């Protein structure tokens, strides 16, 4: 191995002047307006991650409030109405505003770096995706603040969510929030796929793509085929509810069908679980590889497992509906498929264990989180196999056993790898390391708090405690285990606080200069930490799957891309042979403008169907401005012009770093 801590010098600028010129070309304009106009994938990825983490904290506060309410029998901390809003907004936020966006955000930040290009494909679409996500989040939380928080569960089943049983606008807010966040997820998926298909470094054939990038590709395909279902079904729901439209998709009296809602929702909802979990497996693969110091065992099998998981993931949705009248054959098929999906996941687990076993593992904080993930995810997977069995599922349906199961797979399977990844990549974002011993405290408190909270829920479920109840009587005997779970939730809160403190302390310190502190093999570590705006001065080429472990300085570099336009190199889809050059769009205010129009449309459509034609009209105006080359509003151009003294200060700062 020939690993260095410094950026690979053949990929860096030859002199300061050249660095400054390329940096000026790719850096966003200064000031607030420049910030709003940015189309750099690193800005956008970071915004997704930070915003999603804030939503994680807010939804965690709702969870804490629910745990306080349930700590004692017949408690009066939250009333039933507020409790309904809290568990609905908690679940909705965690799924739509935290888990999916943070996984996609990490992908949008790292995929272009890992495949060795300068920016993601379709930079303006990428910027629009973030703003649409933010609009969705503001809509949902704005609703909660004015006592219009969604209250029909994160899946909003009809007929409860229909016009007869949920008057008012709480469910409308939920349905329209779905549209906004799914537009965002779909935009991110298209950006990620095109970046990976067309912008890989020369030589990065399909069998040399880092596993994290493979995971993002598989996830993006799943998003493309799953998200339309939830947009459509939430659209049906909104139309059924909207005055003057009043369709009857789910109204049994007019031939509508509530089971149709469940089918379409879970056709999205089950793949959703894998949309969250598969990127996490990508993070685990990267961390395991780096910290065991060897190539991941069974790379082709790992990739095939991801693809198999994605395919089988679309054939499981009915296992959420075992308690509805569906044909016996259907139950058997979906029961078998639900057990089968354990196979590719199991293969991955064994490959990681073999990699660690045959490597020389260094037990740093990221790897610690991965070890926690392996243990907890196996536990969650086992209860999953149990719930795949129809007779058992009928007993456990809608009990806390299910709550325990999906928190084990989602927190164990996605949040633990996510924390590992945040520790792993923090130096890449900031040029600073997070504190190791505080990190260990963070891990152990999370591990202990998590198990204390959710393990007792298995038992509570077996004892018959149902989900979504705001209180229970003392005679049930559920009090002690619930109190235990609440104490555990408090420890999780402390753990997340430790993480935030760790980040704050690290940001307060001055930057270090190691580009590759973990001696990792993938290309994101070949450039500076944090990476320059243009990512690589000379684009890298690749001749193996671990470019930084095999004489990176001796590999040919790409030269000849424009230094006047934002140009990237396009390569062939399979073998990544250089094909042509491609000019990316510049920074622009129009993505934000479009997101505002779409966000207002989805807000007003709660009240009137005329919001749709009006929204289309204004969207088309904004889109025309967007596509008309070189058409930024004058005041934006003026405001974004660099002021000479600031610009000089910035370049001297850049030179120091």
């Amino acid at each position, binding site marked *: 191995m020939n690993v260095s801590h410094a950026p690979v*010098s*053949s990929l860096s600028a030859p002199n300061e002047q050249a660095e400054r010129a390329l940096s000026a070309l790719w850096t966003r304009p200064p000031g607030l307006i420049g910030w709003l106009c940015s189309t750099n994938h690193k800005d956008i990825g970071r915004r997704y991650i930070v915003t999603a983490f804030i939503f994680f904290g807010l939804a965690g506060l709702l969870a804490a409030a629910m745990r306080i309410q349930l700590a004692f029998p017949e408690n009066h901390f939250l009333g039933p109405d507020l409790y309904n809003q809290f568990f609905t907004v908690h679940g909705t936020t965690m799924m739509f505003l935290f888990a999916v966006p943070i996984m996609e955000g990490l992908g949008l930040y790292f995929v272009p770096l890992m495949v060795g290009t300068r920016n993601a*494909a*379709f930079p303006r*679409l990428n910027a629009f995706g973030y703003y649409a996500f933010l609009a969705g989040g503001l809509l949902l939380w704005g609703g909660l603040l004015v006592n219009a928080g969604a209250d029909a569960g994160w899946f909003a089943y009809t007929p409860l969510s229909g016009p007869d049983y949920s008057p008012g606008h709480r469910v409308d807010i939920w349905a329209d929030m779905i549209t906004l966040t799914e537009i965002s997820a*779909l935009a991110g*998926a*298209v950006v990620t*796929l*095109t970046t990976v298909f*067309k912008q890989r470094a*020369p030589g990065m054939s399909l069998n040399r793509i880092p596993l994290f990038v493979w995971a993002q590709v598989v996830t993006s395909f799943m998003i*493309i*085929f799953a*998200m*339309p*279902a939830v*947009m*459509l079904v939430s659209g*049906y729901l909104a*139309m059924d509810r909207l005055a003057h*439209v*009043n*369709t*009857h*998709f789910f*109204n049994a009296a*007019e*031939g*509508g*069908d509530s089971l*149709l809602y469940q*089918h*379409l929702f879970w*056709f999205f909802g089950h793949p959703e679980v894998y949309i969250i979990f598969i990127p996490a497996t990508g993070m685990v693969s990267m961390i395991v590889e780096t910290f065991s110091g060897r190539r991941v065992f069974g790379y082709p099998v790992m990739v095939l497992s991801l693809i198999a998981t994605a395919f089988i993931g679309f054939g499981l949705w009915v296992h959420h509906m075992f308690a509805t009248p569906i044909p016996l054959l259907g139950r058997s098929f979906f029961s078998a498929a639900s057990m089968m999906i354990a196979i590719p996941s199991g293969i991955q687990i064994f490959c990681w264990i073999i990699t660690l076993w045959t490597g020389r593992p260094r037990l740093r904080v990221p790897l610690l989180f991965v070890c926690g993930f392996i243990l907890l995810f196996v536990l969650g997977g086992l209860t999953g196999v149990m719930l795949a069995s129809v007779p058992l599922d009928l007993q456990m349906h809608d009990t806390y056993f299910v709550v325990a199961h999906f928190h084990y797979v989602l927190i164990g399977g996605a949040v633990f790898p996510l924390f590992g990844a945040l520790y792993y990549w923090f130096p890449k974002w900031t040029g600073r390391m997070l504190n190791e011993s505080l990190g260990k405290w963070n891990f152990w408190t999370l591990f202990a708090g998590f198990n204390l909270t959710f393990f007792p829920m298995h038992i509570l479920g077996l004892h018959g405690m149902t989900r979504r109840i705001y209180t229970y009587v003392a005679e049930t005997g559920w009090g002690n285990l619930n109190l235990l779970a609440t104490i555990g939730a408090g420890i999780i809160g402390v753990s997340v606080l430790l993480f935030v403190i760790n980040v704050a302390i690290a940001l307060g310190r001055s930057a270090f200069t190691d580009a590759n502190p973990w001696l990792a093999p993938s290309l994101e570590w070949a450039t500076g930490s944090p990476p320059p705006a243009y990512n690589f001065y000379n684009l890298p*080429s690749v001749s193996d799957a671990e470019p930084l472990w095999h004489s990176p*300085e*001796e*590999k*040919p*570099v*790409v*030269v*000849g*891309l*424009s230094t006047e336009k934002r140009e990237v*190199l*396009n390569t062939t889809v399979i073998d990544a042979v*250089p*094909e*042509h*050059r*491609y*000019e990316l769009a510049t920074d622009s205010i129009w993505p934000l403008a479009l997101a505002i129009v779409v966000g207002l449309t989805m807000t007003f459509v709660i009240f009137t169907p005329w919001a749709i034609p009006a929204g*289309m009209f204004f969207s*088309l105006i904004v*889109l*025309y401005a967007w*596509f*008309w080359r070189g058409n930024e509003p004058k005041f934006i151009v003026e405001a974004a012009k660099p002021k000479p003294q600031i610009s000089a200060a910035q370049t001297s700062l850049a030179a120091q770093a």
Partner: protein
Amino acid sequence: MNTAVIDVSKLPAAVEDHTSPIWWGNLFMLFIETTMFALLVGTYFYLRMNFTNWPPVRSDVALYRTDPDLGFATANLLVLIASCVPMFIVDRACLRMDLRTVRLGMTAMVLIGLGTIALRFFEFSGLKFRWDDNAYSAVIWTVLGMHLLHLITGTAENLLMTLWVWLKGLDIRHARDVRVGAAYWYWIAGVWIPLYAIVYFGPRWL
């Protein structure tokens, strides 16, 4: 530092064909839209199971007289299929950078697009049900409406490119954009063939 280099400065600065990223981006968008229509078709057949008569009986209309009208609908289908011919001529003209053909062909495409949008509104009136009558009418109105959104989007896109080629001429990037727009238009026409068959012949044959 004497690393070997791969000099890409001689590679084309833009291309017009399916190797372009925008072509791929358009393809992925069409995956999304096709999935959505497939789910709409699934909804149609799922709701069909709840009805004895499809379309449902109406007290004020004799049985079997509630099938949707074929006239405007079939005319619109034929216009859409035929519109692929001028679109294809424009598509080919982009490869030759034949500005005159592109200008005239794109203008024709905008007019045809406006024509199909107008015909679609007549189609709605031939459905014999309001959208809020029952589940059957909800799904067929949604199929027609969703496809109408694509007709509007596709026509708006063609109008933008038409304005560009008349005002600014044709360069290789915009020729590529016209061609990607053409791929979208073929899809709009193509996807309507099975949807038309389901909406208009489903009630007659199911």
